[in-house]
């Protein structure tokens, strides 16, 4: 490994491909010019991977957009240079820059779901990129596009050419983006958080792919990420940014081994690591006969499709016979890949989707409750969603939003509520003076705290955290997780903690279930599942987790079937149930064939 690195990054030997000097990017807002990125300098050689890491809002994306010449209207490069092969990119006229974009330097964006044009098929989007730069016929371009698709190892590339983005999974879409970016063999590829939106397993594959393509084509890569695990696995050099300034720049091993700045150290410390959870162990709450919530053979189906009479033809078996308990004061985790039904369970528990089977909260069955009964249950179960921005009404001040549950349930007078909201704000580490602000005036982490405050306002017995920390920066994530743990210690609240991030889960849960295709395939205490994973799917998930240690890089794994089996079946066809086996001390594992 190290050999490759030193070969790829000869110290000052050759001219660097990209030389950024004192780059300052500023926004003009109401007549005031404010720098977003200030005095950034770094070099990048051909075939090298440079990672830019840093918390959200530190200017990573702005930097990459500045290089691409795609800055928003009111943002511009105000000083400094970015020389690609000796030519200053920001001062290139738009026409020449356009010719270079896509051909000399290409970019992959963070959101694979929204970065492809939804009404154009994959083939057209690819060939269009090729033909914008090379005077080839439509057919030749299509042939080139096909080659590119093959290169990113998309199954059935011919068929994909004719498909539309929504027909592909997120991972496949990201591969298409990569194919598009690499089709013209650019000298520089900028990948802005290319895997953040993907499942760990898919992330692993995409990272492997990038690395492979790089060795093949010699493209230099700027990889932007906030995930130190990804940095450790892929980068040669790292630039750490904070508030628009470069904090530290070093080869990856040096950075991880001996970070020179406090900020870098703090950043690295906040990274959740697999195996670290054991250190934070606390005694498991006993298996009381009165769980906070109990799910028994819960099933959730969504009917789709329609025949002549408008009856559904197909059925999504989103949740298929799931059973588990959540005990008072415990954190129960649910992990699994996207689409396996985690959120659906959360929704069923919160009464947002109808379910079959039995869900009990505090001993009362959810189904068949009166409106009053439902509302009473609402006081016991609260939910914290993945995206705090989406979960808050953007037109309501956060103070009102946090008081809302109390208003709904008619608790207290206006003053009492105000006092309680102020108290809650303090509890979650916010300043009560901020109560009159709107959600968009807060950072992501702060917003999530607001959501937690709102969830707490009714003193619930159970809080469902559906990917509640996934969208947050590692440092913020750590703070929120600490907050959750603290609240649990203080109030004895239970959590249903849903996440696809194995490292996080390992750090917070007491017990967990691993879900696959709407069913739990392994369930037990944290130590049982992480220490002694018995189901093949569990191991696969664990293996895919990037390790924030550049010295422990994993070799690329062989291909695996990309198409997940679908939970959609024609109506009437039963889905196959797995059978669970207790392999001791409440460690359940599904039987495999």
């Amino acid at each position, binding site marked *: 490994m190290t050999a490759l690195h030193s070969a790829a990054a000869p110290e000052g030997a050759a001219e660097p491909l990209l030389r950024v000097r004192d780059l300052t990017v500023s926004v003009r807002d109401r007549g005031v010019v404010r720098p977003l990125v200030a005095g950034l300098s770094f070099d990048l050689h051909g075939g090298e991977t440079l990672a830019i890491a840093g918390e959200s809002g530190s200017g990573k994306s702005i930097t990459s957009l500045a290089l691409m010449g795609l800055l928003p209207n009111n943002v511009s490069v105000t000083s400094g240079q970015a020389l690609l092969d000796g030519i200053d990119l920001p001062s290139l006229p738009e026409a020449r820059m*356009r010719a270079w*974009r896509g051909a000399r330097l290409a970019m992959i964006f963070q959101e694979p779901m929204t970065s492809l044009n939804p009404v154009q098929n994959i083939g057209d989007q690819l060939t269009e990129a090729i033909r914008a730069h090379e005077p080839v016929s439509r057919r030749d371009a299509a042939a080139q596009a096909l080659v590119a698709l093959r290169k990113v190892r998309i199954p059935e590339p011919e068929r994909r050419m004719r498909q539309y983005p929504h027909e592909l999974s997120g991972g496949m879409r990201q591969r298409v983006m990569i194919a598009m970016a690499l089709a013209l063999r650019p000298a520089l590829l900028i990948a802005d958080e290319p895997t953040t939106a993907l499942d760990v397993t898919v992330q692993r594959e995409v990272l492997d792919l990038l690395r492979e393509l790089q060795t093949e084509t010699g493209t230099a890569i700027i990889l932007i990420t906030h995930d130190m695990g990804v940095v450790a696995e892929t980068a040669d050099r790292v630039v750490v940014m904070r508030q628009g300034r470069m904090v530290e720049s070093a080869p990856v091993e040096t950075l991880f081994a001996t970070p020179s700045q406090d900020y870098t150290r703090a950043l690295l410390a906040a990274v959740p690591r697999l195996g670290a959870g054991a250190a934070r162990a606390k005694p498991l709450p006993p298996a009381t006969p009165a769980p906070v919530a109990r799910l028994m053979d819960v099933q959730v189906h969504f009917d789709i499709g329609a025949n*002549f009479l408008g009856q559904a033809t197909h059925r999504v078996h989103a949740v298929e016979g799931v059973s588990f308990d959540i005990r008072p004061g415990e954190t129960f985790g649910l992990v699994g890949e996207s689409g396996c039904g985690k959120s659906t369970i959360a929704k069923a528990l919160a009464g947002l989707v109808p379910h079959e089977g039995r869900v009990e909260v505090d001993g009362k069955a959810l189904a068949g409750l009166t409106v009053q009964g439902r509302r009473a249950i609402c006081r016991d179960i609260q939910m914290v969603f993945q995206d705090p921005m989406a979960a808050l009404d953007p037109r309501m001040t956060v103070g009102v939003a946090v008081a809302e549950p109390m208003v709904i349930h008619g608790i207290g007078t206006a003053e009492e509520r105000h006092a309680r909201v102020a108290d809650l704000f303090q509890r979650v580490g916010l300043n009560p003076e901020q109560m009159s602000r709107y959600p968009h005036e807060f950072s992501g982490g702060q917003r999530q705290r607001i959501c937690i405050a709102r969830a707490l306002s009714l003193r619930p017995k159970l809080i469902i955290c559906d990917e509640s920390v996934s969208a947050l920066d590692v440092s913020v994530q750590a703070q929120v997780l600490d907050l959750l743990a603290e609240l649990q210690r203080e109030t004895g609240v239970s959590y249903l903690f849903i996440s696809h991030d194995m490292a996080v889960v390992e750090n917070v849960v007491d017990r967990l279930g691993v879900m696959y295709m709407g069913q739990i395939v392994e369930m037990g205490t944290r130590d049982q599942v992480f220490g002694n994973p018995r189901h093949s799917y569990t191991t696969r998930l664990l293996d895919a987790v990037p390790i924030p240690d550049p010295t422990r890089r994993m070799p690329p794994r062989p291909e695996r079937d990309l198409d997940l089996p679908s939970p959609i079946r024609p109506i009437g066809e039963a889905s196959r149930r797995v059978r669970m086996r207790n392999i001791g001390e409440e460690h359940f594992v599904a039987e495999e064939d």
Partner: protein
Amino acid sequence: MAGYLFRRLVQSALILLGVSFITFVLLYVLPADPVRQIAGRSATAQTVENIRTQLGLDQPLLVQYGRYLAGLVQGDMGRSYLQKTEVSTLIAARLPASLLLMVGGIACELVIGLTLGVVAAVWRGRPLDQGLMVTSFVAVSAPQFVVGLLLLYVFAVQLGWFPIGGYGTAAHLVLPAVTLGIMGSGWYSRMMRSSMIDVLRQDYIRTARAKGLTRSRVLMRHALPNAILPIIAMIGIDIGIFMGGIVVVESVFGWPGIGQLAWQAIQRVDIPIIMGVTMVSAAAIVLGNLLADIITPLVDPRIRLR
């Protein structure tokens, strides 16, 4: 798809049934006696009664309606009271002209409205944008009769570019279609503007630019098709709005459509014609909506008909 179509057709038929019933009742209670109109001013009470019986207008409402409906399902829309001709013949003779005008009008409002909307979105916040948005208000507020005459006067009489009214060639269609389309273009430019602004913020536009596409290609191939999607559903609604405008525009330009037929029929309570025109226009609207719903998934592959 077939199932969807089938259900939508049944729904449409029910809507048409509802329309026919309401119209029939409204015309029944309308304070104007068609028999008077038929009988003429020198008629005696006897004659009037004769005619009333002959036409079955002395029957109870539901019987009359039942009879009308029975005819309708066999394609018989009755005979005009005053012209004595089959309503279906009259409508058949005039419908193509109206449809042509309507298609022309929709094309015009789309071309004008969408262009203005796109231009305004691209230059949003600039004086050009604000100017265009004022223009859209002018378009919405301008009475069609005046617009029509103005266009006719300038482009046909003064400049001689187009014939002064009439029907037949493509040149005849231009001015009426523009007149009809101007009001809608005001709406469309506003909707297109906001839709376009929305789309221009999307990630895939950035992707397209990152590919090194020209600005115009990004606009035309990536932004436009997406921005148009929410507009398509509006086109169905439009047909209904056009039914009103058609009366005015047809008379200004001497366009032989059903608008004038309806107008004369309303003035003289020629109930079979009013019913016929109502049913035909309702069918056009229902069909327009259906078409819009069918076209949307063709343009937007994400939408599947259910």
